């Protein structure tokens, strides 16, 4: 134990800090033993708390605890019932779900099949412009059989359906029709009503969200009846906050500090291989990445393991595919020469391209330091091996995104976190109409494979089709897969009950947490 000349407790007492004035928003802090302090690190903004409108990961961090979905993942990443007690496939295009009885919304209303129908249909409604709309457009009808039974019918067999009904970044969390209707969408987005174990008590823009426990939750009243979730814009500040006992839990941790943090006894580091992908997005319609030989040459001209060491400090693995190795469908994709660092092979492939040494190109980098380091190391290696002149242009994410949308870029560091279905990775990134396809990559063969995978409901057959798609991607190299990073949470050692999932969960675990 560390002894200080003047203890923090004494200082707090002297200054009135312990008398109720919190140093975090909302007045939580240590004065209230029932308050859990869960810092959302690395983010300063939450735009909405309506699942239909949400797109940012910090929004989901909160919503995971406020809402339930029909289904969820268990600790083995198997799909199990959440608000659905059970489910069964009636035929290739019909899924029947039996709903839990006696479930209450946080405003006291009853949860019924009508809320399920409403929640899914509002995401599908074009007028609502939901960012998750494409996940539910294959649904033709949500049919109410009785107040506790629904059938979800699709136009064609729909492989991703079960994943897209889970309490992850899907937008299909179940909302109360009565609450949305009476409050209006804008008000609902600020004070949402779900069935989860926490209700939104206060949301201060750019500061954080305060949650209060829902005693009537079907999963049981939480141990911590109050949760304070400050938005901590700097990831390193999240770390110093928990080290200084200003918060109890963080949503992430700086890669470089993980080895040091793991040696501490007052903090536990939870980590596992994450469901995420980090890659170099290439503009396939613009020089020099419009040449498949050039793209393949570049892929062999940098060492992915070096990136893992230098960018992630070992907190991740090199990946030969944009589908993360941790994904339930994937397993390990066999080593492929196209993603192996081989300077001689890279130069031989470069010789086949229409570009020569000295070729210029610009790499956009954005975000925190490790993203910039990612781009710098990549460019340094490629320039050295191929003798080309790629340069770095740094900007913030918004500007970079606007550039990619306008098609005004050559290459950019890119990544996605917390996606649970291969359709979101390969389908949306490499499908010619996929909204994550900023690469202007269009391949009839790839589209055919992705369409087949989307309509295949046998998991084994789906896996085989995605394997084909991955192999095709390695041949045509529309993007350069690089690595996946571990997901991390820091938690004070005196707390238990937080179970971490590969898709970077957070708020869903607050209700399970307890001291000791």
């Amino acid at each position, binding site marked *: 134990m*560390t002894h*200080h*000349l*003047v*203890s*923090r407790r004494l*200082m*707090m007492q*002297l*200054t*009135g*800090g312990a*008398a*109720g*004035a*919190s*140093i*975090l*928003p909302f*007045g939580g*802090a240590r004065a209230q033993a029932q308050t859990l302090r869960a810092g959302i690190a690395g983010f*300063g*903004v939450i*735009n*909405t708390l309506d699942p239909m409108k*949400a*797109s*940012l990961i910090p929004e989901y961090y909160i919503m995971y605890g406020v809402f339930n979905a029909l289904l969820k993942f268990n600790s083995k990443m198997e799909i199990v019932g959440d608000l659905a007690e059970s489910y069964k496939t009636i035929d290739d295009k019909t899924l029947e779900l039996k709903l839990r009885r006696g479930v209450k919304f946080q405003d006291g209303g009853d949860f019924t099949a009508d809320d399920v129908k409403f929640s899914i249909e509002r995401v599908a409604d*074009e007028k609502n*412009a939901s*960012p*998750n*709309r494409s996940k539910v457009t294959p649904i033709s009808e949500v049919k109410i059989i009785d107040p506790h039974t629904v059938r979800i019918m699709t136009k064609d067999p729909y492989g991703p359906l079960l994943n897209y009904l889970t309490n992850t970044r899907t937008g299909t969390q179940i909302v109360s029709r009565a609450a949305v209707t009476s409050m209006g969408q*804008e008000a609902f987005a600020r004070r949402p009503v779900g069935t989860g174990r926490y209700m939104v008590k206060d949301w*201060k*823009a*750019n*500061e954080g969200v305060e949650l209060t426990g829902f005693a009537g939750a079907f999963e049981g009243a939480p141990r911590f009846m109050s949760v304070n979730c*400050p938005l*901590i*814009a*700097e990831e*390193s*500040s999240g770390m*110093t*906050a928990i*080290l*200084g006992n*200003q918060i109890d839990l963080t949503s992430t941790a700086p890669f470089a500090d993980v080895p040091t943090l793991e040696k501490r006894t007052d903090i536990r580091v939870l980590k596992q291989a994450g469901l995420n992908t980090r890659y170099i997005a290439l503009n396939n319609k613009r020089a020099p990445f419009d040449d498949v030989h050039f793209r393949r040459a570049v892929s062999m001209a940098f060492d992915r393991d070096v990136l893992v060491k230098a960018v992630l400090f070992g907190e991740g693995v090199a990946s030969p595919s944009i589908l993360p190795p941790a994904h339930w469908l994937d397993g390990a994709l066999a080593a492929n020469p196209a993603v192996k660092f081989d300077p001689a092979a890279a130069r031989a492939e470069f010789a086949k391209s229409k570009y020569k040494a000295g070729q210029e190109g610009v790499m956009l980098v954005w975000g925190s330091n490790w993203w910039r380091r990612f781009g710098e190391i990549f460019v340094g290696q490629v320039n050295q091996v191929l003798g080309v002149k790629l340069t770095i242009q740094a*900007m*913030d*994410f*918004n*500007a970079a*995104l*606007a*550039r990619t*949308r306008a098609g005004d870029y050559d290459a950019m560091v890119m990544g996605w976190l917390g996606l649970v279905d291969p359709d979101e990775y390969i389908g949306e990134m490499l499908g010619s109409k996929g*909204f*994550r396809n900023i690469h202007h990559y269009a391949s009839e063969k790839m589209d055919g494979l992705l369409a087949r995978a989307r309509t295949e409901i046998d998991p084994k057959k789906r896996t085989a089709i995605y394997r084909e798609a991955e192999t095709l991607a390695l041949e045509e190299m529309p993007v350069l897969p690089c690595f996946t990073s571990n997901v991390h949470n820091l938690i004070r050692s005196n707390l238990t009950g937080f179970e971490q999932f590969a898709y970077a969960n957070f708020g869903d675990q607050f209700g399970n947490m307890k001291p000791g």
Partner: protein
Amino acid sequence: MGAFASGLTRTAQRFGGVVLIALLGAAAVFFALRAGQGDPALAALGDQATPEAVAAFRARWRLDDPLALQFGRWLAGAATGDFGASMVIASGEPIAQLIASRLPNTLFIGAYALALAISISLTAGVVAALRHGRFVDGAATSAAVLGISMPDFWLSYVLIYALALGLGLFPSYGFTAPSASFAGALYSGFLPALAIAAPMAAAFTRMLRTALLETLHRDHVRVARSLGHGERFVFVHHVFRNALIPYVTVIGLQVRYLLGGTVVVERIFGVNGLGSLMVDAAFARDYPLVQACALVFLVCVLIVNFAVDLVCAQLDPRRA
């Protein structure tokens, strides 16, 4: 009467200058923001936004109107204290309300930092000048060079690791608003204020030391001594008072850096102030919010400079 009228004219001219600079500053921020890359719609709607949703967002906030019209509309509102609503990071919340809740924290940290910087520099500058060429002078001068050389974000983490995590004297993160507890604000705001104050204190110390040394050797000081005045009297009335004019001027000039410092330091220490709000608003391209924050900062700087001019005029011994 003539002197009064002339003073009134000068004040009116100065006030007119302040308004003109505020207008030019507001225009510069407005057009620079629009000239930059990025789109508030993408920040508000996410990277999965459809073109239709983006178009609807832009129509709602009238972002496709001619820039001059947008600026005129914003300026007309700002002139009456209506800065509009946040487009992105506080979706629809009135900006005046946001500023009212965040500005006091920034002003508190800024004033706290200024008070610390002045206290440190007055002590160090006077001691260094009076012990010119001795060890204390060397130490104070070296500390000043070190202080000027340290970036505020780096110093912030040094202070966190040394005083918060190392000695456990202060919180490592978070801030108690002065409205909740003034003593709590003094305690939790000490490290962020010190991080901002250190480079300023260094600059002030160097300026004060130099001014005092120069003044100590001026003719009027020698004359005062020859008239038999005591050293303390001479120092206070003939040296220190003269040296205060450049010192106060430098304080006025440094205020802009003080406000810049809060932008960085607020994020590191978790102070919910105007600086951190402006940074996130800028990343999100929340145009009206950035414009309002920038205008508030600009007006603060202009007010301080205006006040410094008045103070310097009062300090001028020729007025005594």
